[in-house]
Structures are given as C-alpha cells and as structure tokens.
C-alpha cells in the first residue's frame, strides 16, 4: 500500500477502525471534530457502534460500559472535554478497563482557545481524576506516528487492562501529511473478566467495579495497581534520541514542537553548536532514566513546550540537579519558530 495524504484526525480515526475498534463514543469539540465525523461515517460500516453522546461525561461512561462488557472501545476529545472525562477515566483505571482516549490538545485554562497547545501535560500524566492511578500517555510527533500510536494504545490498554491516552497537539489533528495506515489485524486479548451477561452458563458472575468499602481490600487494590504501574514503567518507556551521541546540550521536547526543535538543532549544528534532542514518546511512563543518563554528558538541558512549563518539572526530576534545566515556551496557540529555540539556547551559552 502506498502513502495517502490525510488529515491527522481522520487518519487517527481510520487507524482506530483498522485496529479493530468495536465502539466509539464522542462529543463535538474543536479541534478533534473530524475524529467523531469520520467514525460516524465509517465505523458502523465496519460493524462497529457509533454514538454521539450528550456530553463528554456520558461519552466516557459509555466507554466504561462498553469496555466493561468486553469491547475494544475509544473516545476522543480536546482539552476542556478531556477535563470533563476525568471522573470516568478514574473509574476505568479503578475497574481496570482497557480503553483508548484520544486527546487533541488546545489552549487553556477554562475555555481557552482552539489553537494547538501543550498545557494539558499535567492533566494527562498526573490524572485529573480522583485517587491513585496512572494512565499511559503516548505523544506522537506527526500524523504517521499518531496512527501507529493509536494501534499501540489498543494493544497496551488490553495488555495491562488500563486506559491509554494518545495526546496530540492540535497541529497533528488538523494538518495533512502522507500516511500509511497499518491494516494488519490486531490480536484481541482474551477478556474472561468482562461483564457479557452469561453469568449462569459461565458459572461465575463477572462484576466491573471500583468500589472497595473494606480498607484492607482497597489498600490491596491500590498495591496491585501500583505493581502494574511499576511493570509499565519498567517495560513501556519510549524515547527518541536525536544527535545526542556527541551533544553538549540536550533539548527536550515532545509532539509537534519536537520537529521545530529539530530544525533549530540543524541550524545550530551548522554554527558548530553541538545540540541534540531527547523526545519522550511516552509521557507516562516518562523516560526518567534516559534523561538522567543524558545529563552526565551535557552542560545543560532546555525543555521547549507549548505551555508555560509543565514537562520541564519531570525533566528536572530526571536530571536531579546534575546540570541546569532551562525552559522556553509559548502558549495560547502561539507556536515558536526554530530561531526562538536557537536564541534561547544561545542565551544560556553566553554565561559560560
């Protein structure tokens, strides 16, 4: 199959259908509308269920129901809508339900704006919902990778019985790029725990639940979840290192900004400044180890985000004081140019 030119949101939706998504529940919000629209047009044709829910709350709770009943299911939204879904995401995490949440991020807080931003890093990686839980967060840097990550997201969610978020900034949702979507059938994990109705013939009742009134039971549940997250942190970190072999300075960026940073790196390299890029592809689990090791080889790091500084705190935790970690960010839908990144790097070179 050859590449086709597709808008990010539509490619994400097509990739989800190709990955065997059984059911999609969504609610309109810019800049992710094309996902809902594509699903409404094509999901039923491939035998799946599409419902335009009355709200993001209802949509994530439909996902909770469908996932609890054993379906491969997904919802999508953008920043304020993802905020509304947090209660349901917490329930999915608590009841250990596999599901995929696609977040096409825009500016905030509040209603914010509709242009691309990365101000939801904390919301995604810390969890806006209540309780001790983690959501796996994948952050693509373009349309092709977004389609691959949607596929990965279904696999990871079923492998670990955990919600997985694909968080892409609005640029990725809205821009068109050449893409080749993997149409190989995605293996389905057995779900002997699912509430499918056949309690009598199965001989046991399957119950989907996040309520544990006995504190001993709830603590044991929290401990079991923590062990699962430890396994995820051990095995599922994905990070891209670019020109880091000989780098004196490491830039850290994810999503669309990582590509702008690459242009800045090429420009600086031509001027003899040895800069490299660390690009987390998983925001949770975060590449703490890889960034900590990189800190041994560079003079400083600079994190570039479309926010006023969120991931930079994780980078500082990773670096653990070994070298300075600076920050450069734009927000509100404003996107930096490569020169702004180069200038930021150069401003920190001066003092040496």
């Amino acid at each position: 199959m050859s590449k086709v030119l597709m808008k990010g949101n539509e490619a994400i939706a097509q990739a989800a259908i190709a990955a065997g998504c059984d059911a999609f529940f969504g609610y309109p919000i810019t800049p992710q509308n094309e996902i809902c629209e594509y699903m409404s047009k094509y999901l039923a044709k491939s035998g799946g269920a599409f419902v335009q829910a009355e709200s993001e709350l209802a949509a994530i709770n439909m996902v909770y129901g469908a996932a609890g009943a054993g379906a491969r299911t997904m919802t999508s939204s953008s920043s304020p809508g993802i905020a509304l879904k947090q209660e349901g995401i917490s329930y999915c995490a608590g009841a250990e339900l596999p599901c995929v949440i696609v977040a096409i991020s825009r500016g905030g807080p509040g209603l914010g704006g509709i242009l691309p931003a990365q101000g939801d890093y904390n919301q995604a990686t810390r969890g806006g919902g209540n309780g001790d839980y983690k959501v796996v967060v994948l952050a693509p840097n373009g349309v092709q990778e977004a389609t691959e990550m949607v596929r990965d997201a279904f696999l990871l969610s079923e492998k670990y019985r955990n919600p997985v978020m694909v968080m892409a900034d609005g640029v990725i949702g809205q821009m068109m790029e050449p893409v080749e979507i993997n149409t190989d059938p995605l293996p389905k994990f057995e779900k002997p725990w699912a509430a499918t109705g056949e309690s009598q013939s199965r001989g046991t009742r399957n119950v989907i639940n996040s309520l544990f009134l006995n504190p001993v039971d709830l603590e044991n549940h929290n401990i079991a979840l923590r062990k699962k997250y430890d396994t995820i942190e051990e095995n599922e970190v994905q990070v891209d290192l670019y020109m880091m072999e000989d780098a004196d300075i490491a830039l850290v960026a994810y999503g669309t900004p990582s590509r702008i940073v690459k242009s800045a790196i090429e420009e600086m390299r031509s001027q003899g400044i040895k800069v490299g890029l660390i690009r987390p592809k998983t925001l949770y689990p975060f590449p703490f180890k890889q960034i900590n090791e990189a800190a041994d080889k560079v003079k400083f790091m600079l994190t570039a985000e479309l926010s006023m500084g969120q991931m930079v705190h994780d980078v500082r935790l990773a670096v653990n004081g070994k070298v300075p970690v600076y920050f450069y960010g734009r927000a509100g839908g404003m996107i930096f140019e490569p020169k702004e990144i180069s200038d930021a790097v150069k401003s920190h070179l001066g003092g040496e």
Partner: protein
Amino acid sequence: MAVVFQKTKGLTDTPFTYCPGCTHGIIHRLVAECLEELEILDRTIAIASVGCSVMSYEFFNCDAIQAAHGRAPAVATGVKRVHPDKIVFTYQGDGDLASIGTGEIVQAAHRGDNITVIFVNNAIYGMTGGQMAPTTLPGQITTTSPYGRDVSKQGEPIRMAELMAQIPGAAYIERVMTADPVSVRKAKRAIKKAFEIQKNGGGFSMIEILSSCNIGWGLSPVDSLKYIKEEMASYFPLGVFKDKGASQ
C-alpha cells in the same frame, strides 16, 4: 416434601445491606423474580448506581457493572450498543437519576435505547444520611431541609415519570409503589412488562417505584408504608404515563 416456596435464583446469597424496614429489598426480589421468570438471567447485565443501592451488583445474580453517580444510563448505552441481544437494566435512586443524572436519563430515553430503568424513589438521600432529594415532598424535613422543604427556594419535587413520558423515544413509563401486598404485586407486573418490552426490542422503559426510607424519614416501618400510600402517592400519582405498544 413438596417445595412450596423458594428464594428466586435471580438473587445471590449475599445478605442485603439495606436498613430493616426499607423496601429496596422487596424491589430487588421483584426484579430478580422477573429475570428468572423471563429466563433472561443468563443474558442480563445489571448496571448499579451510587446511593443506597450501590452494592446491588452483589445482590443480583447476573453480570453487573457499577457506574459513577448518575451515569448508569450512559453506561447502559455503552453496554447495549456492543451487546444488542443482551438484557441491560439500571437500578437507580432518586438522587442518582433525578438530580445528578438527569442529563443521562433524559438522553438515553431520547435515543430510544432498548434498556430498562428501575427507578427507586424514596424522596431522600438515604445513603448519605437523609439529605433533601429532588423528589423530597413540600414541607418534608430532611437533614438539609431542617425546616421542611421550602418550595419557594428549593422548588417543587420533580415528577420524573411524567417528565420522561414526554420523550418520544420512551416506550413505556409507569409509576408504582411498594406499600402493601397488592401494590407490590402491581409493581412486579410493571417491572415484568418493562423487561418483556426490552426482550421484544420495544425500546426504552422506566418503572418508577415509590419506596420507603423509614430511617431517613424518622418513621416506623409500618408508618413509612402509610407515608408512601398517603403522602408520596398523592404527589406522585400512580399509573401508566406512556405505553407506545398500546397506542399502536
């Protein structure tokens, strides 16, 4: 020896968590008997809600999903859309359905989702200790209406059956009560009809059941049943409010 009565297979052996005198237990039995008699236990998924009946997933002898407060109809939609041949019902109280979950219940009916809703109206938040509910009667004393519900500030109680009957997608809406043996038998007939409608693909049904909360109301169990009959049923009239099958 001939067996003249035995507990329905629709209930597990787990002891109920309901207060003595509360009619949730009766309603559970009615629902469970209907599931058994209609031979749908092995294809039913119950959706439990938040409130006194939060543990209902432990009591109904079928698969179950516990839902967030008010969201049970949305969860039911999610289940039904991926298992259209299964029987899906929600079991919700008045705080859950008529307050925090009004959006979900109205929209599930609007979509005409082929599910059954068991709505237990006892005019109070029992689980949290007896606060005012959207269905609390005018003048009724609760822990958050200590001087009695003042309708000038707190509004009139919501009549959900009447409201839901206005929705084109709703196929069957009836209000019953559990106040004496006769009304209990009538309640069972209503519940059974609702499940039969779903079984036949008839669409959305809701049975509102006026129920007691003797602890929250501060009455004896016997006086509570009287309160259902005399006070609640006069504000919330019993009857069939919508029957699409009959009008066709």
